[in-house]
């Protein structure tokens, strides 16, 4: 019989059926019975020594010391345990990376895509958003000339030509059905009249 089984039997820690087997074996085996008696004697001795309390114990003082030690332990734990931090919903790193990407993409777009194309894409997106109601009203196939308070311009085949006069605002402007736009400027200093125009080729 294994000594561990005898030790467990002595401590009443064996399952019921194994305890029965050990009990049956010990009845017929003197050696094991002697070992079991020794184990039982050791247990009783240990229990007796544990039950013996030191002389002159002041229970009230002991309770106060234990309470103080527990409080000191808790305070020390507060000092050495890392404080739990609130985690932001979005960390700054991904946000910074996203912002950098946006800047890069915007820069690449600005450098490489002509404004007219950007406007065309914008119009197409607006059309998609409005279910095509805008494009239905502005179906354009030919070149466009325009005149406004910012001067004259021509849009044709993705190209653009705009003419202005040193930041002056035109005093009048007009378009013609033959495909030209003109704007008239008056130089307030010299009185000179200048007319700028764009023409469809």
């Amino acid at each position, binding site marked *: 019989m294994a000594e561990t089984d005898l030790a467990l039997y002595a401590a009443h820690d064996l399952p019921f059926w194994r305890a029965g087997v050990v009990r049956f074996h010990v009845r017929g085996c003197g050696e094991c019975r002697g070992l079991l008696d020794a184990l039982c004697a050791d247990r009783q001795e240990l229990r007796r020594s544990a039950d013996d309390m030191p002389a002159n114990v002041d229970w009230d003082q002991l309770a106060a010391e234990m309470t103080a030690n527990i409080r000191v332990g808790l305070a020390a734990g507060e000092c050495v345990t890392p404080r739990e931090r609130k985690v932001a919903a979005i960390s700054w790193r991904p946000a910074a990376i996203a912002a950098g990407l946006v800047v890069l993409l915007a820069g690449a777009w600005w450098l*490489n*895509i*002509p404004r007219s194309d950007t406007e065309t894409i914008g119009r197409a997106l607006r059309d998609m958003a409005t279910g095509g109601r805008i494009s239905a009203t502005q179906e354009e196939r030919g070149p466009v000339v*325009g005149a406004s308070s910012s001067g004259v311009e021509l849009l044709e085949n993705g*190209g653009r030509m705009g003419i202005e006069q040193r930041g002056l605002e035109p005093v009048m402007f*007009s378009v013609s059905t033959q495909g030209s736009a003109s704007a008239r400027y008056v130089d307030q200093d010299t*009185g000179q009249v200048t*007319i700028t125009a764009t023409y469809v080729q």
Partner: protein
Amino acid sequence: MSNKIYIALALAGAISLQAQAINHKIDFPKDSPVSLLSEDFGNSNATARGANLIEVNAGLSLRNSSQKRIRSMTLMVSTPDAAGKGSVSVPTLDAGPGETFSVHIGTRLIRPLTAGNPVVEVTLDGVLFDDLSFYGPDVLHSQRTMIRWELEAQRDRKYFKTLLATSGAEGLRKEMLSSLARQGDSSQRGVQMVRGRATNLDTERESQFAFLDIPESPVEASSGMARIGASLAGAPRFEVRNRSNRPVRHLEVAWIVKDQQGREFLAASMPADMTLVPNQTGQVVQDAALRFDRPISIDSMSGFVSSVEFADGSQWIPSRGALDQARLRQLINPSPEEQRLSQIYTRKGIQALIEELKKF
């Protein structure tokens, strides 16, 4: 951190490297009546942004090297591969032989990216002299326009001189104040002209043109129609009849739009090249549409014949008497010469204006 600095430097470098100088070419014919004294393209540059964005800011100093007085001049501005052409005109010049004058060109062009520096070409399209003779290749058909400017200038100077003779300086001063008030009361709107079809099939409707008849006009316009949509009007067509005894080869009709608040404004001009012998009727059909930059509900449209060119090259323009109709007076833009004279009055006073009128 160092990576971020590198990225920022790379971006800044990429942007700064895009700017480049432009080449320019000023090409006046050898026998040109105008010679180039000096040029300054210092503020011109090109930026590559998917296409070449070319900004031209140039000043030209020119001299009349002919023996006649120059009344107006048109320069053509273009660049290879760019859309269309542009022009800069000075319509109220009075440069005598040997005299100098300056022209400023401020242009912004976009053209496809190509190898090498972009080139901007400035060429002479036409020069008009005081005897209405013309010099130049006239690529932009500027001769017709420049003759009209000169006819308007002669008409208006004569009007103001007559007024001075009949009503004195006070009468001229009142007329100048009235002109300045009209110029300041302009109700112009930004407008685009789309060549080819630009329609809204759902909301378009046919609308009639009402034509203002100017009794002295050699051409009569009638039976006008156009399609009206949301903030646009297109496909105008109308009949014209030559009621003069001279053949006509070109005419222009002014297109007036009235919104639903009752405001009228000159929206566009409708030029037409057509041959009309005396008493002949013709049909003008324009494949174009007018689109306003702000929403407008068009209530009605009208028009009037604003100029006619005869087969011999001479032109008719409305007289001051015809323009004195209250309605036309509010709609028609003053001529470049009237604006120049009113500027002289504003800056220098009535006496300077009288002296200026005496020069002609």
